[in-house]
């Protein structure tokens, strides 16, 4: 875990999270380095998606949720409402969801939604941003002639890439991905995994995945969660070849799922 050239962009310090009385996260503590792909793995209900949603405070939308501890992004506690405006946080920390959720608007409007929200008005600027994001998401060639068509007309894989482009359009530093390919066919999955490899040069990516092979394919570091605790956090190769935690090993080898 020592990387002197890169600094931790996300620091999770002693985070406990409660849904009412139920504790979903227990004393989670680790750092995520920037411009890397970090994967969260673990069985269902272990808290990995919950932690992911903390990073951009989508947790706020859930009633009865209480968080203790600190999460620092760029050294600022994101829960400190005086110092960190939540909308600006969400600009810096983008999210791609499990099921592609393009707006029922044109492709252009889908991508332009974010920038417009944050104040970009000039058509020229918007055009540039739209093209830029679509290029980065690898979708430009496929849709450049139909920017005015509805985003819902695209295939599943294309829609997901549209959602990625949409997230990129607001110029985030971190991109969170919540099982982004679980609803897609293998070919689209492959395309998006390739995309992640390219994106990590400019963005920090945190990806929750149910598919361990995916984690091995694309992530630099992996964190293993079980029942709300983060039991192991190591560079991916190390974690999968030589896990230190017994439960982690059991999970990886398939003793339980």
């Amino acid at each position, binding site marked *: 875990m020592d990387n002197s050239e890169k600094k931790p962009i996300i620091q999770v310090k002693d985070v406990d999270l409660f849904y009412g009385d139920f504790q979903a996260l227990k004393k989670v503590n680790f750092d995520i380095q920037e411009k890397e792909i970090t994967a969260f793995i673990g069985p269902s209900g272990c808290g990995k998606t919950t932690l992911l949603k903390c990073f951009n405070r*989508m947790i706020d*939308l859930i009633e009865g949720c209480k968080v203790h501890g600190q999460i620092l992004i760029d050294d600022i506690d994101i829960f400190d409402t005086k110092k960190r*405006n939540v909308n600006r946080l*969400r600009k810096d920390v*983008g999210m791609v969801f499990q099921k592609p*959720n393009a707006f029922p608007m044109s492709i252009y409007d889908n991508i332009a939604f974010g920038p417009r*929200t944050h104040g970009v008005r000039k058509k020229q600027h918007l055009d540039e941003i739209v093209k830029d994001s679509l290029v980065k998401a690898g979708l430009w060639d496929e849709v450049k002639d139909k920017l005015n*068509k509805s985003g819902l007309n695209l295939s599943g894989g294309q829609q997901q890439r549209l959602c990625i482009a*949409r997230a990129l359009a*607001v110029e985030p530093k971190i991109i969170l991905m919540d099982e982004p390919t679980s609803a897609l066919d293998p070919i689209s999955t492959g395309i998006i995994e390739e995309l992640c490899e390219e994106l990590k040069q400019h963005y920090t990516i945190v990806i929750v995945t149910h598919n361990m092979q995916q984690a091995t394919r694309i992530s630099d570091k992996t964190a293993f969660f079980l029942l709300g605790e983060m039991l192991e956090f190591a560079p991916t190769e190390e974690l999968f070849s030589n896990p230190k935690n017994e439960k982690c090993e059991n999970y990886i080898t398939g003793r339980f799922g």
Partner: protein
Amino acid sequence: MNILNTTKIAEKHNKKEIFLILIFSIFGIVLPFTILAYLKLKKLNKDDTSQRLIDSAKKKDKRLTAAVILLVTWISLFVSAACALVVFYATGWFGFPLLIAIVLTIIVAVLVNSLTVAFVFSKEVSFKIIFLISSVVAIIAVFAIFFFLIWEGMPAIAEIGFFRFLFGRTWHHDGDNPQNSIYGVLPMIGGTIVAAIGALIIGGGLGVLTAICIVWFCPKKIRGFLSQTIALLAGLPSVIFGFFGAQVIVPFLANISPTGMGSGPLAVSIILGMMIFPTVVSLSKNSIEAVSSTYYEAGVALGAGKERSVFRTVVPSAKSGILASLILGVGRAVGETMAVIMVAGNVAQMPDGFFAPFRTLTVNIVLEMGYAEPNSLHLGALIASGVVLLMFVLIINIIFNLVKKNPNSNKESVIIPAIKRGITFPMRFILSKISRTTRLADDEVDEFKQRLTLEEKRKSAPKINKLSAFIVKILPMTARVISYVMLVSSIAFLGGIIIYVLTNGLGHISWQLISGEFSGFGVNHPRTLAPSIVTTLMYVLLTSIIAFPLGILTAVFLQEYTKKGSKVAKAVELAVETLAGVPSIVYGLFGMIFFVNILGLGLSITSGSIVVALMILPVTVRATQEGLKAVPDSYREASYSLGAGKVRTVFRVVIPTALPTIVTVLILGIGRMVAETASLMFTMGSTPRAMPDGYSSSGTTLAVAFYAFTRNMQFINEAFAAASILIILVLVLNITASLTARFLGKKRAAT
């Protein structure tokens, strides 16, 4: 004591305008401070979403500052209120209208201040306040109506005597000797019940069978066409149904009636039944369609045949939805006025056969409210009968809420089985006591079961005679035939009404009728609809401005800004439900007394617009809410994750997605406005007159003008022509609504 020389000014202008302006300005200065203090106290301007996450212990000192500001603000508020009251007490305008005006002004002032705050402080908070205030209007309206009903009605009941009122069998108002008047509503209660049951049997029976037929028996190609057609007919104005009833049905029935008179429960049942038919069909259809086809498939797979499967598996599953549609239809029938008054006979006696003249509660009110003296026992008795009517509708609503399926669970309603059990329990109990069958021991039972195969069991069943067998065999097809017959006759009937009116009326639509100038009240002057057309446009505009923003904002508040089960949400939803149940004639009564008389707005377009706006508010809220519910949460999530706040998400993502539904709601609302008659007659006017000068003029809308034309035989052609225009207008509106919904929906998906 002439402060600001107000008396002199008042002589030149309308008094009410003056004190409204004065109060408004006073409150307008003070209230922003109240809101500021509110903001400080709640720290809402910091938190753009509705959830605070971290426990914070730093509030103490902030609270003190905030409390001081709040205290100062409220003191100044009271001082200014006191000043206003002093001013007007001195000039002698103190009174109930002043109080109302102050309350209304506060509301307006708070609204305006919220908007001001919006430009200075957080957009989020001010919008939340705007939404909240809109929703509170519904609560205020309910309170106002109930307060009014109780305030005016209860003293009358007390004076007459509760039992003598409710169970008195005579209603007679003696204009010459008011002390000889007797007010007993039992005949009218009987009349309302009879009308409701009759409408249920005809409209409900036809409706349900038609719905079943459309979903299961009709060829696919015409299914959509049929549903659309029937939905179109839902908006036909009730006066036209009544007119058709009086012109065609009643003389028709008179030929077979033993007394030679056609009016009565049968005529009313037919007319009301056909009026609620489209509603019942649409709602039942939805329930039947929602039943999973696996039930049907299972039935057919067991060899049950199509009809048997449908009637024995699908329909019972849709039971609660069908029941709900029936109850809704009955609620509508109970509140109906104009159609009934033209065919019922209107005699205040208990209905006594299919052809006996009778009166419902609604007709009783409409018949006499035109000349009931203000503050008289007579008027009080009428209002009290409105209370009785309201109780009816509330009971029906409660049954509705108990019966309909809880959308969150898949459980069937518990009420029906419970009722069933309750009814059959005594029977089963008695049967078990008198039955002589012995109970077999368990092992005997198994052996017994093993011995008989299905075939043997069938053979050993009691023999039925050949006739019964034959009936059983053709029953399925008979059921199908009957359903078809119901479908065809219902549509034929409704189509018949339209054809009848159009054939008699289209030929008489002349340029004079549509655009001629109003030249005189006398019968030698040609009738013209031009003033009514203008009046209708003005009225629709004002009503839309009042009802639609309020309705949409309230729906947004309920759907987007409240958590499930929060007290505010429950209060607002309860208020909306209650308002939805109030019959339209009660709104008319309330409007007549409150807006026309007490507030002094007189018979005017304004009065009519406010009343009808209140009437369509609940439907607007509910339907918009459904549209908002249908927007998937994933869109909202995506919007938030991109950094958009709640206001932006609501206005840029949720509402545009729900736009097809919202537009449909608006257009259908306009259709409802156009069709309304009874309440408008007593708040806007019932005699056609010259072009309105403005919103304070009285006037007649198209529907009311039509009704006025029908009252004079000389103008029967013009009446038909007006009816034709009305029908065409309503049909066009309905078609526009469905086309717009489809077009906008397609646009979303394919831009």
